[in-house]
């Protein structure tokens, strides 16, 4: 058993309870399921990008994997920092995100995200991949 100074912090627990209560009261999981289908439709065209190896999705969470070779799905070497170039560009285009495991761009917006904002997020990601193509080390 390992304990932390802030384990079961009463303020964090009280906020978590209120958070879950809102999810239930506003039936946000139904909304997430519906919005996930919108997300699925919006990210589908990314699969045609010459550098996208795979687009993975679970609910509203999406991972866009960039690869060096689309046919073999060979990854970029870490020192190419391909993913970080995209996330840095995305900031300039109004989207804050990170690349995980080097080159997997992540989207996981709040449950309350609008269709319009989802569209802008995916567009910013798409344009950031395009704008940084060939700039890797």
């Amino acid at each position, binding site marked *: 058993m390992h304990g932390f100074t802030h384990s079961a912090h009463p303020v964090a627990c009280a906020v978590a309870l209120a958070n879950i209560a809102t999810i239930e009261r506003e039936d946000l999981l139904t909304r997430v399921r519906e919005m996930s289908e919108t997300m699925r439709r919006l990210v589908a065209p990314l699969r045609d990008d010459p550098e996208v190896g795979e687009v993975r999705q679970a609910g509203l969470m999406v991972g866009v994997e960039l690869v060096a070779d689309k046919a073999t799905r060979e990854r970029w070497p870490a020192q190419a920092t391909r993913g970080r170039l995209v996330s840095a560009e995305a900031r300039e285009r109004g989207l*804050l995100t990170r690349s995980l495991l080097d080159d997997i761009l992540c989207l996981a*917006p709040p449950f309350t995200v609008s269709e319009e904002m989802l569209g802008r*997020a995916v567009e*910013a990601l798409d344009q950031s991949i395009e704008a940084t193509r060939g700039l890797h080390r």
Partner: protein
Amino acid sequence: LVIAGGEGCELVTEDGRRLIDGMSGLWTVNLGHGRQELVEAAVKQLRSLPYLTTFGGVSSPPAIELAEKIVELAPALRAS
């Protein structure tokens, strides 16, 4: 990059530029920023008991209630 505020699903920089919070913080801001019911829950708790260590078999009502809620929601069977 310095973020000074959050409004709904967006973050606002010190100089007023808006960015979509693409990862909900670290998958944590499920409801978006600035939810009044969360602010009120935090303030209420800060007034009654702002901090407690759970070392040595000590606990507090929100910790117990949250643990029960998570067990209720989790897909695993309750340990007998």
